[in-house]
């Protein structure tokens, strides 16, 4: 139990996907303009990463490792993730239409979100057990959502302030992200990791 809590907290704060591993920067910059859209995207990511952690773990263990095909990892993972996203989309549309319309456009975009593939690869690299893998995936996605929601608050402020012309748009967003990232550096001392 202690191990799981450690994995979860370090995945959310210490090794935050966006702010210290640079995974999923595209949605982080693109969808964080409003807190509501940030939450929508975050929800979709939590859902997909948690599922894909389990599925890619199983695919690796029972398919790739058993038949000595680990060199195909990248191809298999990306296809598994693409298929999974499609599957989740179809199932949600049928079973939970309200959730589907809430996550709506964010779902298909997740295939190309490097956070999903990144978490699958990190899990194999660290040789987690199934339970650890799922907890890690879930916590990483929560960390991603946390960073996005925090950052959307910062961005709503930026919208109303006066910014030099050269810095308008992307540059000021990146610099704000740098400041948020500095705040997360503070967690690095946790557990002496």
């Amino acid at each position: 139990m202690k191990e799981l809590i450690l994995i979860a907290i370090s995945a959310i704060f210490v090794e935050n996907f966006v702010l210290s591993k640079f995974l999923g920067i595209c949605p982080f910059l693109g969808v964080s303009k409003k807190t509501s859209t940030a939450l929508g995207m975050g929800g979709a990511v939590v859902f997909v990463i948690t599922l894909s952690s389990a599925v890619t773990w199983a695919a690796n263990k029972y398919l790739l490792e058993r038949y000595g095909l680990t060199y195909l990892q990248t191809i298999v993972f990306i296809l598994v993730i693409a298929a999974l996203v499609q599957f989740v989309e179809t199932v949600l549309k049928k079973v939970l239409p309200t959730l589907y319309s809430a996550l709506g456009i964010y779902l298909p975009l997740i295939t190309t979100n490097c956070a999903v593939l990144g978490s699958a690869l990190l899990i194999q690299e660290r040789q987690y057990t199934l339970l650890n893998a799922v907890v890690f995936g879930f916590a990483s996605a929560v960390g991603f959502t946390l960073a996005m929601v925090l950052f959307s608050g910062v961005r709503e402020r930026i919208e109303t302030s006066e910014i030099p012309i050269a810095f308008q748009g992307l540059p000021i967003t990146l610099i704000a992200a740098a400041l948020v990232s500095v705040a997360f550096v503070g967690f690095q001392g946790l557990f002496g990791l």
Partner: protein
Amino acid sequence: MTDKKRNVFKVLTNGFMKENPVLKLVLGTCPSLAVTTMAKNGIGMGIAATFVLLGSNIVISLIRKIVPDKVRIPVFITVIAGFTTIVEMLLHAYLPDIYKELGIYIPLIVVNCIILARAEMFACKNTVGMSILDALGMGGGFTIALLIMGSIREILGAGTWFGITLTKNLFDPAVIMVLPAGGFLVYGFVVAAVQKFSTLNIRNKEIAAGCGMSCAGCVANDNGGDKA
């Protein structure tokens, strides 16, 4: 004839300045931020991605007439993943140092938006020759952008450039520059400098907003790749 020549030149140089993937189109931001702690890593990542881009552009422009429209994205992704695996194995065998430094960011080339975006916007509409030029131009632009960012971060953050000590007596290196925060900061300032010296301000903003919606958004934006 001159018209055709000019066109070739335009395709090749497009990626360097006018549509630099990192600095103008804001594609492939994840590796640009993650691996640019050192100039050497920036170049390594740039060349690896250029190789994948070249391979995928060639194959996709060759098979563009055979692949049905509906399944083109999965086909493209599989082609890209194949080339990524090749690069990964080559690096592992011949450049183990770079392989170790770049770590999981090598397999993540698969989801680098630049490659899928070029496949969708350029390679699936143009001939093999043009696609090769486009890949070289875009890959070159990507590599240069990474080199610039890597150099700034390495010089300010570690006081070295390609491992050579430069600033021994000038100033103490600021470690923050090689931390993640420095990545965002340098990227922000470099893009600001590019905006300052370019006339394409408005378009840049537009793309920044559209692109975050992922590559699909970029592709839908369709910013002139096919018009070139």
